[in-house]
C-alpha cells in the first residue's frame, strides 16, 4: 500500500459523477471555512496539518477504514506529509491532491453543451474549483472564446486538437473575481480581443469594442453571435446570443441566483440597471433560449456531465432573483447583506485593465478562493 497522487481532473470527474469521496483537508481552519472542495457525494473534515505533526493517532477514529481518503492542502506538501502517516497507520486507500488547492483552483474541464444549427458546437469550460464558466463557439475551423480564464493554454490545446483557429476573444464585462486570459489568448492566437466600451474606459491596452448590433460570424456559415447590452453587474455588461439558441449572460443572471452590482463600487447606481436588464430586456427575449452564465456558486448547479445551463423560461419560474416584484425590495436585496467581496478583487480589476502586471505566482494567489459574484435571493 502506498500513497497515490490524485489530479484535479480526476477529482473533478468524481465530483461530477457523484462518486463517494472522503476528504481530509489539512489547511488551517480559516482557509477551510472560506473555500473548500464541495460535491453532493463529498464528505470532508478539517484538521490542520500542524495539529498532526506528532502523528495521526488522534484522528484515526474520525476516518473511514474502507473508503478512499483524499488528503488536501494548499500546495500538496502537507497533504503528502499527513497522507504518508495515514498509510503507515494502516489506511489502505489514501491519496493526496496533486498540486493542492492551487491546482484545484486552476483546473478547467471542457464540457460540450450542444451542436449548432449549421454545423459546429458550443463548449463550456467549467472551472470547478472557483465556479467560473467560459465558452468556446466552434464552427468550420474557427472559434470565438468568451470570458477566457487565466490558463489560456487549455483553450489553445483544445482548439488545436479540433483544428480550430481562435479568431475572436470576448469578455462580457470587466471581471473582478478572476484574471482574464482574454488579452493573452488573443495575442497568442492572433485573434481580436473585444471588451464592452463602457467597462474599458481605463483599459491601457488596445482592443476592439463589443457593441450591440455588431454581430460576429464564426465559421463561414451563419453562426451568429449577437451582443446585447445588459448593464447591472458592471455598467458595460453585455450578453451574447449564440446561433439564436443560447444566451450567454455573463455575471448578470446565473442558474440559481443573479449578479451583484457592487464590485465596481456602485451598487446603488447599478441596481436599477440590473433590474431593467433582468425584468424587462431579458423578458423580451425568447423564453426557449438556453442560459449559459459565467459562474455557478453551488455544486448543485452542476447538471449532467458537469454542464451548467437552464432555459430562460424556467429561470423566470424558479430563480428567486427574477421574482422580486417590488422594485424597492429588489434594490435592497442586491445592495444589502451582500456576501464578502472576492479575494483581491480591486487588484484583479486593475490587472484586467492592464494597469498592473503581477508575476504569475502572485496572480495565482490573487485568484485563490470562491468567485462570490452572485446575490442569492
Amino acid at each position, binding site marked *: 500500500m502506498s500513497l497515490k497522487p490524485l489530479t484535479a481532473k480526476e477529482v473533478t470527474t468524481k465530483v461530477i459523477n457523484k462518486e463517494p469521496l472522503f476528504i481530509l483537508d489539512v489547511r*488551517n*481552519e*480559516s*482557509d477551510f471555512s472560506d473555500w473548500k472542495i464541495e460535491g453532493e457525494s463529498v464528505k470532508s473534515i478539517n484538521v*490542520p*496539518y*500542524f*495539529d498532526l*505533526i506528532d502523528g495521526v493517532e488522534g484522528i484515526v477514529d474520525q476516518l473511514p477504514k474502507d473508503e478512499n481518503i483524499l488528503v488536501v*492542502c*494548499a*500546495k500538496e*506538501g*502537507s497533504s503528502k*506529509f499527513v497522507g504518508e502517516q495515514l498509510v503507515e497507520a494502516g489506511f489502505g486507500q489514501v491519496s493526496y491532491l496533486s498540486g493542492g488547492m492551487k491546482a484545484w483552483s486552476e483546473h478547467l474541464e471542457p464540457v460540450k453543451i450542444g451542436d449548432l444549427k449549421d454545423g459546429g458546437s458550443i463548449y463550456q469550460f467549467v472551472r470547478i474549483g472557483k465556479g467560473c464558466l467560459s465558452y468556446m463557439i466552434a464552427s468550420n475551423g474557427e472559434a470565438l472564446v468568451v470570458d477566457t480564464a487565466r490558463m489560456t493554454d487549455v483553450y489553445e490545446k483544445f482548439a488545436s486538437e479540433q483544428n480550430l483557429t481562435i479568431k475572436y476573444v470576448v469578455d462580457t464585462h470587466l471581471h473582478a473575481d478572476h484574471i482574464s486570459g482574454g488579452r493573452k489568448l488573443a495575442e497568442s492566437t492572433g485573434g481580436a480581443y473585444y471588451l464592452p466600451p463602457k467597462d474599458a474606459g481605463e483599459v491601457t491596452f488596445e482592443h476592439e469594442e463589443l457593441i450591440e448590433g455588431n454581430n460576429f460570424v464564426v465559421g463561414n456559415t451563419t453562426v451568429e453571435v449577437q451582443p446585447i447590452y445588459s448593464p447591472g453587474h458592471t455598467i458595460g455588461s453585455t450578453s451574447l446570443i449564440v446561433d439564436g439558441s443560447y444566451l450567454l449572460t455573463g455575471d448578470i443572471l446565473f442558474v440559481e441566483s443573479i449578479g451583484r452590482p457592487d464590485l465596481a463600487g456602485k451598487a446603488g447606481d447599478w441596481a436599477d440597471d440590473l433590474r431593467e436588464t433582468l425584468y424587462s430586456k431579458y423578458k423580451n427575449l425568447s423564453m426557449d433560449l438556453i442560459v449559459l452564465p459565467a459562474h455557478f456558486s453551488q455544486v448543485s448547479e452542476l447538471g449532467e456531465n458537469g454542464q451548467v445551463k437552464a432555459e430562460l423560461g424556467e429561470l423566470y419560474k424558479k430563480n428567486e432573483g427574477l421574482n422580486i416584484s417590488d422594485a424597492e425590495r429588489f434594490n435592497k436585496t442586491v445592495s444589502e447583506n451582500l456576501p464578502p467581496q472576492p479575494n483581491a478583487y480591486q487588484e484583479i480589476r486593475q490587472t484586467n485593465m492592464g494597469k498592473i502586471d503581477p508575476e504569475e505566482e502572485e496572480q495565482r*494567489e490573487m485568484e485563490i478562493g470562491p468567485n462570490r459574484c452572485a446575490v442569492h435571493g
Partner: protein
Amino acid sequence: MIKTDKVLDAKGLACPMPIVKTKKAMTELSAGQVLEVQATDKGSKADIAGWAKNTGHQYLGTVEEGDVLKHYLRKSNPEETKEESKYPHVISNDELKKKLEDNEGIVVLDVREPAEFAFNRIKGAISIPLGEMEERYTELNKDDQIYVVCRTGNRSDMAAHLLSEKGYNNVVNVVPGMSEWDGETTGNN
C-alpha cells in the same frame, strides 16, 4: 530590530516544514523566551498563528521584509495562566483605562519581552522586561505612581513585588493586563 532569544531560518521551505522546524525550535527554548521564525512561504503566517493558538503558545505578530516573513512567537509558561497574584495593590484594566483618559502624566511599566511590547503596547508605556528588572529598576522614579502591566498579570505581579522590595511604594499591578486590554494601543506593525 526586535530582540529575540533564538532565530530560526525556514526560508525557502514549503509547508509543512516551517511548522515542523518551529515546533522543534520551541522545545529547545525555556518558557517566556521569544523565537523569530524567518520564512518565505506566504501561507506560513496563518499557519503559525493557528499552530500557536492550538498549542497555547503566544503568536506575537509578523513583520514582512521584502520576500521574508518574520514571525514572532513566545513560548508560554504553564503557570502564567494561573490566577495567583499575591501583590496586594491591583487595578483593573478598565480602571487604568479611565485613569489614562483623565491623566496624561501616568507611568505605565510594561514588563513583557521586547517582541511582545513591539507589536502591541499602551501608548507611552516604558519597556523593562521582567528578566532585566534587577539591573534596570533604577531607571524608574520612586515618587511616581507606577502601573505595572504584562500579558496576564503574573509577570507584573513579580515585578511589583521586586519594586516594593527596592523601596518603591506607589506600585500597582494591572490585572489581567494586555491579553484583555481593549483600550488604545500602539505598535510597529
